[in-house]
């Protein structure tokens, strides 16, 4: 892991093209800078500038934006160009986003935000503060799920935010916690998020807007790094991070069954650090809640969200990725955290595929695990050795180890779930009965 990364720590800044560009100062600590470019609330993309600890003048910023985001901007500029009928047609049909969409979802549709936390009172406070500033015409309910009630760290923070509901889930595991959140939410839409993010004020409105269409079951959003101060945070972004790019997309059941051989890459659809669900899907017998045997806090690592996406899309709903609904996530700073995160992702990836195989009989998982995965590793190692990537081989080996551990950890997780019991909707229709107010 002694990769020479010249551009760490990296400063994170954002600029808005709808106002005058100013120089970016106070970069004396940073050899490089990542600038997120907005046009009003719309997030166009990002540019990286190697500024060598100097401030960045507006001219340099302009050059970088024109060079790295040129095509994106040109589609905006050319939109109504009278001499370019073909171009404007492409723009209208392919590139344009309907801005009126935001206001269409009736204000009567209520929203619950289920926030899972595990002993991080400081970050939780920041997150709750950001949530309380949401601008929305609809009723917003905030439910905090304390996944470690015996520590007593969470309740004092929640007490400072009147109206926020606290739910305790003593069974450890993020899937248990999220399920508790889904069960205790009363909104028509449930948004799942974590304690280590903060969000802009229009986040809820951006995220729920696509639910105006009845076929949409899930909306995921972009996750941006709040800081890239250490090499490990940078590597986590290089590993793929949690964001899924700046382009909107949607997938549905045909996408899931597009190939008979290859598993549909549900892990590229987003993460539950920033995802919204139609609340009714959890009572759908074909879908249900999250699989408790997957996810952080369990031996199997991750995969609870991808498996939930899988089930929901399989049941006939579509998923919309909405890059404008973004949150800023604080990646963990140290090497140990990065390694354990990557290890967990690798375990979880295998666990997820085995789950689709065992529960849904999806045989494509076999091809994925036995053919595709080994092939990607070989490719990536060759790439690294040729110097085409900065991702260290030691981490690739770690991923392989995680993959090998996957089946065993899934078995252990399942045993634990059998012991501790599954999450269920309470029999009483009033979900509020078991709440700790």
């Amino acid at each position, binding site marked *: 892991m002694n990769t*020479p990364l*010249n551009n760490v720590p990296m400063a994170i800044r954002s600029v808005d*093209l*709808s*106002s*005058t*560009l100013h*120089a970016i100062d106070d970069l004396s600590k940073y*050899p490089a800078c990542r600038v997120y470019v907005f*046009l009003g609330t719309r997030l166009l993309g990002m540019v990286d500038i190697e*500024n*060598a*600890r*100097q*401030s960045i*003048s*507006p*001219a*340099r910023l*302009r*050059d970088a*934006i*024109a*060079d790295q985001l*040129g095509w994106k*901007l*040109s589609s*905006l*500029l050319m*939109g*109504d*160009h009278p001499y370019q009928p073909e171009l404007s047609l492409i723009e209208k049909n392919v590139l344009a986003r309907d801005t009126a969409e935001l206001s269409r979802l009736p204000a009567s549709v209520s929203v619950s935000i289920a926030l899972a936390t595990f002993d991080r009172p400081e970050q939780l406070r920041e997150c709750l503060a950001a949530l309380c500033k949401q601008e929305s015409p609809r009723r917003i309910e905030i439910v905090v799920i304390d996944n470690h009630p015996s520590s007593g760290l969470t309740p004092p923070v929640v007490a400072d935010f009147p109206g926020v509901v606290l739910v305790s889930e003593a069974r450890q595991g993020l899937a248990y916690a999220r399920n508790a959140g889904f069960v205790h939410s009363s909104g028509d839409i449930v948004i799942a998020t974590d304690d280590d993010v903060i969000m802009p004020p229009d986040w809820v409105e951006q995220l729920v807007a696509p639910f105006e269409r009845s076929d949409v079951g899930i909306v995921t959003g972009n996750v941006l790094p709040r800081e890239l101060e250490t090499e490990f945070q940078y590597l986590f972004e290089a590993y793929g991070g949690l964001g899924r790019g700046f382009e909107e997309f949607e997938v549905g059941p045909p996408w899931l069954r597009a190939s008979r051989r290859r598993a549909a890459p549900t892990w590229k659809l987003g993460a539950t650090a920033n995802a919204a669900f139609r609340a009714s899907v959890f009572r759908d017998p074909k879908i249900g809640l999250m699989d408790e045997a997957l996810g952080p806090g369990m031996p199997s690592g991750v995969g609870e969200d991808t498996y939930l996406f899988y089930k929901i899309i399989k049941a006939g709903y579509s998923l919309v990725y909405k890059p404008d609904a973004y949150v800023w996530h604080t990646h963990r700073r140290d090497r140990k955290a990065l390694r354990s995160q990557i290890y967990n992702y690798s375990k979880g990836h295998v666990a997820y595929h085995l789950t689709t195989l065992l529960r849904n009989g999806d045989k494509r998982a076999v091809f994925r695990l036995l053919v595709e995965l080994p092939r990607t590793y070989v490719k990536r190692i060759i790439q690294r050795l040729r110097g085409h990537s900065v991702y260290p081989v030691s981490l690739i080996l770690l991923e392989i180890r995680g993959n090998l551990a996957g089946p065993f950890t899934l078995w252990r997780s399942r045993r634990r779930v059998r012991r501790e019991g599954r999450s269920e909707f309470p029999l009483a229709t009033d979900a509020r009965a078991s709440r700790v107010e």
Partner: protein
Amino acid sequence: MVDRVKVLEIEVSQPLTGFSGLEGYNSIHGLVRSNGDPVGYIDVPLCNGYCSASAVRAVLLKTYSDKLLQLMLRRNLEAPFADPRNLENIKVADDTGNPVPADNILVTVAVCTRDRAEQLRDCLTSLTRLTYGNVEILIVDNAPGTDETRKLVLSEFPDFRYVVEPRPGLDWARNRAIDEARGEILAYTDDDVLVDPLWVGAMVRVFQDDPAVMAVTGLVAPAEMETGAQRLFERYGGFGRGFRRIWYHVDAASRADPFMHIGAGKFGTGANMAYRRSVFGKIGSFDPALDVGTVTNGGGDLEMFFRVLEEGYTLVYEPTALVWHRHRKTFRELHVQLTNHGVGLYSYFMRSARNYPRRRRDIIRFGLWWFWYWNIRRLLKSYITTPRVPRDLIVAELRGALTGMTRYPKARRRAEQIRAEYGAESTDSTTVGIPEPVRPE
């Protein structure tokens, strides 16, 4: 007349035209510009001295569509995207597209020359056409053998300042310009150059935009490609350094490439460079043991680029700051020029290795690598494949490089002698044009 190439400018904000009446030329080498910003070169063949507008357009679009679009965006980003769907809202600063900087900064343009009155006349004529108004033009006549230059300036360009620098050597002349200049910014050019009207304005814009910038270099395009030697020099690499604006800054604390700024030739050339005058107070003036007129025959400009970056200041390459250079016309002159390149480059390495002990290892390593990569490897390759340039030019540069490794100490002794001979500061200056030269503070 075989294989003559016509050098032209093609401004895309004007309607494209064909070219005719160029009998005797084989093709055109056009510098494409978009509202003054250089985009790149296109080569279009001529038939009986003629090519059509559609031929030019076809080559242009094929080569530079992306680049033109990018330039348009860059310009549009200068105003906020208030309503991005409305092109009318985007203001363009003036009809050339570049916001004309407020002329509140006085720029001194220094032209160092020696006994080349004919070429100098063209150069000075081009300097009268600058769009930037607040300039002072200073001709430094370096150890003149005749008084042609003096007569030329006095009779035809009475508004320009003329000083004589008796100490022979280009860097003595450049240092004299530092002493004489009144402008906050000091731009250098040579007597074999025609400057573009936007030249000074583009440089000033970079200096204004970012107070940390201490040096700006610009694009050097060929003024003509009439002879084989001139075409060959362009093919050899020429003086141009591309069409993108580049910011250079050495970050001492980072683990980035330590060799980044040692190959100083990539930053530009002395025919087109400008400095904030205050920087010389901080890092010293040009080394008179280097450059034309001494035994080292070059390297003074490279050494200054290196020093600016090594001392932690920022240098910007701005292609819009454009000058047109008359390359040497005969093979013999080209031969001499390339030998001198070799001598100058390695003299600069020796000088920097001597003055920056902590960088010595890096400089020696880079120097050896460059010697292998540029001088030896190309020579060996020329025996295996058809070389891009004649082998004798490669050999000339190699000989220059070998000479350059030994010349600096001698040049330094000579500079010391001159200093002793003329006193620390030359006093017998002759200033005409503007009376009462105000000494810089």
